[in-house]
């Protein structure tokens, strides 16, 4: 599919669902700035035009300002939309660490609607514990707050 998918040290997130709407309707929600803001996050500078740069403001972490830098890579109306999704900072570990990924939206006709497939590719997953060791006190705090997080899951 793309370079990231071929690298053995990266992984993809795939979400695949069928929606009872026409591809054209879904395409509109993926490619209209105002509508994107209503289900994803409000983009700045988005246009469904190859090469176009845009950003999303997310939660900052450490030396990272929280800005996701995107660039439209492919546009096939009602079928396929691909953009780069980059952010993070070298000094961070876990959330807020360097992020160089690609988001691909694939629309295909399904019975009673449209299959929408998201592939978020290029995640570099930790191979050894060195990254986590450098978190030292940081991840101990994670453990301490896990009670709350775990409680929410049940």
């Amino acid at each position, binding site marked *: 599919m793309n370079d990231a998918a071929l690298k053995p040290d990266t*992984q993809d997130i795939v979400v695949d669902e069928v929606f009872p709407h026409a591809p054209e309707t879904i395409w509109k929600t993926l490619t209209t700035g105002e509508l994107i803001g209503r289900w994803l996050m409000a983009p700045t500078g988005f246009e469904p035009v190859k090469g176009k740069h845009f950003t999303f403001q997310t939660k900052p972490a450490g030396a990272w300002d929280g800005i996701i830098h995107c660039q439209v890579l492919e546009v096939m109306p009602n079928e396929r939309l691909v953009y780069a999704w980059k952010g993070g900072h070298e000094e961070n*570990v876990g959330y807020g660490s360097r992020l160089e990924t690609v988001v691909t939206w694939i629309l295909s006709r399904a019975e009673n609607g449209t299959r929408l497939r998201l592939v978020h590719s290029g*995640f570099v997953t930790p191979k050894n*514990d060195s990254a986590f060791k450098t978190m030292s006190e940081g991840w101990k705090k994670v453990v301490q707050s*896990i009670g709350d997080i*775990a409680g929410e*899951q049940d």
Partner: protein
Amino acid sequence: MIEAATITVVMRTLADPTRRAVFERVVRSDEITVVELTRGSGVTQGAISQHLKSLKQAGLVAERAQGRNVYYRAQPEGLGPLVDWMSHYGVFWRERFANLRTLLKEIDP
């Protein structure tokens, strides 16, 4: 989804306050035995052993046998599923798909 399953396992494993306390003690020491963990814990050695077994299955602790003793140490990378980008976005996109479904219902009833 593999990583979603892992998050659930780690969450479930650490949801138990006693088990979490055991894990925190393992984290604070370089290596520790069941006997040392039991001391002052207020629970039986058997209970501690069970908690260590769960922690080991979740990839949160590793063990090393030496003579009669088994030493446990933390494997912080086991917490990876809770703190890395991938798990962040695993949750993020599922939530966004739910938002999208709601929005589509609104604009195209």
